[in-house]
C-alpha cells in the first residue's frame, strides 16, 4: 500500500448512524476514488471480468477492467485460463488493444516485446542490438520481466479476477445463498450471448451500485409496469443478503397468484397474461422456466456485477468506473445454448424492458446523475437510509427496504478502513 495514502487523511468522517447514513462526499472526491482503486478494486474482492464463453478456446482473449486497471483474460495453449494486467513490462503501453480475439501470443506494438498467453516475456526486439551495436545489457534476464499476473477463477460461467493472493474460491466468497442463485440462473445450462451494448452514465460507480440494490425505488421511479398495468404491487417478494459481509444481494419477486389461474396452467406459454393495456402485448409473452415461482430477480455481486432475470430476460450488467463521475454500464444479454427458437424470440423481445432504452429501466440512466448533480456543494451532508430499519437483516417478506444498500456500505466501510 502506498504510504502516502492514509485512509484517515482521505476518507470523510462517517456520520453517526453507521450504514444508515452515507456521506455525499464519497461520490465526488478524487482522493476517495483513487484510494478505492487500491484498497477496494485491487484489494480482497473478486471482480467480474467477462464470460467464460468469451474465452472458450486456446488463444482466445478478452480485455476487461478491475476498477480502472486494464486487464486481459486469456486461455493459454494448455487450456488454462490466465489473467494479467494489460500492460507491457517495458514502457507500460497497453498490450491488447482489441476487446476480444484469438492470438498465439501477445505482442506490444510499441517496441515489439512479445509475451506468452500467460504473460511471460517471450522475446525482446533487437535484444542483441543491430550489427553488433546497441541492444539490451548482457545480464538482461527476460525471466524477471512479465505482464503482471492476476488470479482468475470461473464460477457459473463468469470469470472473476483478483489482485489479492489470499482469497477464498469465488463460491465460498459469495456465500451459499448467492452461489445457489448464480447456479440457478447461470450455472445449470451452457450459455450463449444474445447481444450487448453499454450506457455511459454520468455518476460515480457507487451510485449505480446503490441503485441496482434499491428495491424501494423500483415501482416509484419506474412507472412503466404500473402505467401499463403489467405488474402487481402486491407480488410476493423479498431481499436476501449474503452470509458474512452482506454486500451481495438478491431481490426477487413472484408473479401474483392471478398467474396460477387454471386457464393459464395448461398452456404454460401465455400471452397477455398481465391483463395489460399494451397495444403490442406480445412484448410480455413469457414462459415459466423455474419451479421456485420467482419471475423477477436482480442479484448483485460486490463490487460491480449484477445479474437480472426479468421474466425470461437474462442479462449480466457490469458497471465499470471510467473516472470519478463517469461509469460505463455494460449490458450483456444471454440465453441458454439449447433454447428453442420460440424461447430465444421471447428473450429478444423482453430485452426491451431493460438496457439503455429499457421501458422499465431507462430512468436509471439519468437518476444517478441527478444525485451526482444534486449533491454538489453538499459539504458534510449525508444520505438517509432508514427504509426497512437501520439494520442488515435479510427481508424475506418486503421489498420496501434499503437493507441491501446498507449491506453494500457495510462491505465498503470494511474495505476502506472504517471500523
Amino acid at each position, binding site marked *: 500500500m502506498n504510504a502516502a495514502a492514509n485512509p484517515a487523511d482521505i476518507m470523510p468522517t462517517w456520520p453517526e448512524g453507521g450504514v444508515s447514513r452515507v456521506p455525499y462526499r464519497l461520490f465526488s472526491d478524487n482522493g476517495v476514488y483513487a484510494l478505492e482503486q487500491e484498497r477496494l478494486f485491487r484489494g480482497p474482492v473478486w471482480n467480474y471480468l467477462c464470460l467464460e464463453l468469451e474465452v472458450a478456446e486456446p488463444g482466445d482473449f478478452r480485455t476487461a477492467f478491475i476498477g480502472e486497471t486494464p486487464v486481459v483474460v486469456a486461455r493459454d495453449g494448455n487450456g488454462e485460463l490466465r489473467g494479467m494486467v494489460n500492460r507491457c513490462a517495458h514502457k507500460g503501453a497497453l498490450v491488447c488493444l482489441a476487446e476480444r480475439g484469438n492470438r498465439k501470443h501477445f505482442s506490444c506494438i510499441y517496441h515489439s516485446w512479445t509475451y506468452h498467453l500467460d504473460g511471460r516475456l517471450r522475446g525482446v526486439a533487437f535484444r542483441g542490438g543491430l550489427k553488433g551495436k546497441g541492444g539490451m545489457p548482457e545480464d538482461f534476464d527476460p525471466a524477471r520481466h512479465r505482464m503482471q499476473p492476476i488470479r482468475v477463477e470461473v464460477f457459473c460461467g463468469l470469470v472473476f479476477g483478483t489482485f489479492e493472493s489470499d482469497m477464498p474460491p469465488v463460491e465460498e466468497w459469495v456465500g451459499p445463498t448467492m452461489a445457489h442463485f448464480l447456479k440457478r440462473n447461470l450455472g445449470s445450462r451452457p450459455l450463449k450471448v*444474445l447481444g450487448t451494448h*453499454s*450506457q*455511459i452514465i454520468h455518476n460515480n460507480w457507487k451510485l449505480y451500485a446503490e441503485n441496482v440494490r434499491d428495491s424501494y425505488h423500483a415501482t416509484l421511479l419506474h412507472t*412503466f409496469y404500473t402505467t401499463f398495468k403489467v405488474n402487481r404491487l402486491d407480488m410476493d417478494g423479498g431481499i436476501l443478503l449474503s452470509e458474512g459481509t452482506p454486500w451481495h444481494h438478491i431481490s426477487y419477486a413472484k408473479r401474483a397468484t392471478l398467474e396460477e389461474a387454471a386457464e393459464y396452467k395448461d398452456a404454460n406459454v401465455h400471452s397477455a397474461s398481465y391483463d395489460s393495456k399494451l397495444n*403490442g402485448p406480445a412484448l410480455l409473452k413469457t414462459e415459466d422456466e423455474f419451479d421456485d415461482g420467482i419471475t423477477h430477480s436482480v442479484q448483485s455481486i460486490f463490487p460491480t456485477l449484477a445479474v437480472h432475470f426479468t421474466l425470461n430476460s437474462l442479462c449480466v450488467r457490469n458497471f465499470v468506473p471510467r473516472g470519478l463521475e463517469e461509469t460505463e454500464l455494460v449490458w450483456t444479454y444471454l440465453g441458454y445454448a439449447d433454447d428453442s427458437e420460440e424461447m430465444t424470440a421471447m428473450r429478444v423481445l423482453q430485452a426491451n424492458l431493460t*438496457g439503455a432504452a429499457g421501458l422499465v429501466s431507462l430512468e436509471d440512466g439519468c437518476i444517478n446523475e441527478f444525485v451526482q448533480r444534486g449533491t454538489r456543494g453538499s459539504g458534510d451532508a449525508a444520505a438517509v437510509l432508514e427504509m426497512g430499519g437501520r439494520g442488515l437483516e435479510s427481508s424475506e417478506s418486503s421489498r420496501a427496504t434499503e437493507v441491501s444498500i446498507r449491506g453494500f456500505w457495510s462491505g465498503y466501510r470494511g474495505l476502506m478502513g472504517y471500523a
Partner: protein
Amino acid sequence: MIGAETRQRIEDFLLDCAWTIDEDDLEAWPGFFAEDGRYRITTRDNEERGLPVGIMLCEGRGMLEDRVLALRTANIFEPHRYRHILGRPRLRESEDGLIRSDSSFIVMRTMQDGRMDLFAAGNYRDLLRVEDGQVMFQERAAVLESRRVDVLIVIPI
C-alpha cells in the same frame, strides 16, 4: 431499376420521418411503418456478430405506439430534443418487391439547459414497401456506430 420518381418519393419519405421525430410529432411516427413493420435500434458490433438483441425492438405498429405512449406517460427523463442530419439513401431492389435503403445519419441531442452533443451516428438499414406511390417501412434498423449510448434512449432514433 429504381426510377427517379420513386427515388424522390423515398427521399421525401425518409426526410419526413426524421422531421416527425425532430418536431416532436411522435404520435405520427408509427404511421410511417407497415402494420406488421419492424423497428430496431442496435449497434454495428451486434450486427456484425449476428446477435439479435440490440437496444430497442418493436414488432408491429402496436409496439411502436406503446413506445410513444410510454415516453409520454410513463418514462421519466430529462427533457431533450433531437436534430437528425441525413445522407442521401443508397437504394437497391430487394426481394418481394421491397427496396433496400441504406442512409447515414447523425443525431444531435440538445438538453433543456442548452447542452448539445453528437448523440448518435450510424446507418439506417431500411426495407421499404412502395405501393400506389405510398412509401412505408417494412423494417427500419437504426444501426449505431458506437456500442455506447450516452445516458439513455427514449426518443426513437
